[in-house]
């Protein structure tokens, strides 16, 4: 058996892994800073995908260009959702906060998913551009432009996020709030405002991931749960690794899934990730996010 099909599958694993990382960074950011687990994260990703899909279908806007529209659009949605829902639990402490945010986002995911079914039907959609079928061919390995560009876009976005958090004043304030929100408040940081920005940012990042998914793969109202789980798996794998850790863990997951298809076949691809997730959860019982 030649090496090419194997390498091809691994390359595709990397492509999807980049998206896994992209899907995870928003969730990781929100959980790390606000101590909120947004189980509707996948639905926000789905909305981003649909936004790009309609921008493309109705007005012919290229998906990568639509990122400039979808990003701010979902940022705004995130501000609304935070102001309307999650702000009310931000004053709770520890267990209660996580539990309530889990429940609220669960309700939100039900609403968003069913609104999507109502407005756009349950059918699968995908963006097919002029270049969708094209790709580069290196040493017999296919590199479809859509997937390649998707990976590059994800890398770029994550790197930009990393620099934002490391170099800008607001970014540092976000990091400080994640480390110790009381100390940040005592230093003069408007913590509620940081929370709003963080949640909006997380939503925008989910939306960007959604755009990339709708271009390289497909979207439907029901994909939310699967992507929330993917993001969760990556976040748990990455542990304290932060944003870059999430990217790395995403790529790793994509590769691991690809490799596993040789053993168990493509039908169990998702199950491998879920099994890995449960294993990591069980083998690190002291908790992966060391909250003070």
């Amino acid at each position, binding site marked *: 058996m030649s090496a090419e099909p194997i390498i091809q599958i691994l390359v595709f694993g990397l492509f999807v892994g980049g998206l896994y990382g992209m899907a995870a960074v928003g969730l990781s950011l929100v959980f790390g800073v606000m101590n909120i687990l947004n189980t509707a994260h996948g639905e926000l990703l789905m909305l981003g995908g649909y936004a790009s899909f309609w921008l493309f279908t109705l007005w012919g806007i290229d998906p990568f260009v639509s990122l400039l529209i979808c990003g701010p659009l979902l940022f705004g949605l995130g501000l609304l959702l935070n102001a309307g829902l999650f702000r009310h639990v931000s004053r709770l402490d520890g267990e209660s906060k*996580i539990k309530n945010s889990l429940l609220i986002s*669960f*309700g939100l995911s039900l609403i968003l998913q069913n609104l999507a079914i109502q407005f756009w039907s349950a059918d699968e959609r995908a963006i097919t551009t002029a270049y969708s079928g094209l790709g580069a061919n290196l040493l017999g390995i296919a590199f479809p432009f859509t997937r390649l560009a998707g990976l590059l876009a994800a890398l770029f976005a994550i790197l930009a996020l990393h620099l934002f958090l490391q170099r800008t004043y607001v970014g540092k304030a976000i990091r400080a709030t994640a480390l110790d929100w009381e100390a940040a408040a005592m230093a003069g940081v408007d913590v509620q405002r940081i929370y709003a920005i963080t949640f909006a940012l997380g939503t925008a990042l989910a939306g960007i991931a959604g755009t990339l998914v709708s271009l390289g793969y497909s979207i439907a109202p029901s994909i939310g749960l699967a992507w929330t789980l993917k993001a969760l798996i990556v976040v748990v794998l990455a542990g304290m690794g932060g944003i870059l850790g999430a990217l790395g863990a995403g790529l790793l997951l994509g590769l691991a899934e690809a490799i596993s298809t040789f053993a168990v076949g493509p039908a169990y691809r*998702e199950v491998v990730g879920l099994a890995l*997730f*449960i294993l990591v*959860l069980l083998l690190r019982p002291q908790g992966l996010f060391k909250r003070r």
Partner: protein
Amino acid sequence: MASVAAALGRWAAPRREIVRPVLVAIAIAAAAVVPLLTSRPDALNMLFLVFLYIALGQSWNILGGFAGQINLGHAAFFGTGALVTRSLWAKGVPFAAAFLAGGLAALIFALVIGVPTFRLRGVYFAMGTLALAEGLYITVGNLLPGISTLPLELIVHYDLGARYYLALALAVATMLAARALLRSRASLGILAVREDEEAAAATGVDPVLHKLLALALSSLFAGLAGGAFAYHEVSYYPNNPFNLVWGFDAIVIAFVGGVGTLIGPVIGAVFYTLVREELALTLVQAHQEIFGLLFIGVVLLLPGGLVDAWGRVRRAMRRTPRGS
């Protein structure tokens, strides 16, 4: 959570000892009489669904409401019960045995996963159960892709009344089990674990044991509900009862009705089924959105659900002086 405990206390208040059982008996008797008055399949099927949801919602409530462990993968128990019951029954095992085996299978499965996963803190338990249920759904879908249809002789002798009474009996049994749990010595330990697991452990309560007890009852009745589903449906895809939505419906029903209370899931189940039937003709998906909104509303504003809302209305009415 404080209002939930208060609601709980009100339901168990001794002076209502006479009124409540009588009302309950009347309700059950009325439900039992329905198939004698009508044989319309749509009415009987709808009530079947109500009873099924009562059992499903209450079974989730035992673990999620009483013990405070949010289980997002409740469908796994429902599905396991359905799978085992259906498989045995279709092969000729008498239904009663298949039914009990289904419940038992769900119970054993739950205990096997419960022992390791209960080491996880709350939110990780929720994530773990979610992943487990999703994994199970996909796996069953892969292993049993073909539709499951009852053998011809079972279809020919299909008696909707029997299904109806089974579901009614199951709903009553689940309620009795929940009530028994609340009145048992273990209830204090379970509620203590819900409020603060570490504090409970510090006072000598074994959290794992109490959580396992709640999990055992929760999974048993969810599995039996799955068995009832397998009994009722002529044909369905084997992975259907593993669909996570079954678990999500249970959560919504429990919360909207009044999580942590005894009667909450009943109210939630009735309300849910009614709204769904009402809207089924006009806006098909709307009932999910409405319940999603109600759910969020309950979590944010009214933790005691409709039970608590009703209680508040009554208290407000009592405060209004007569003749004003």
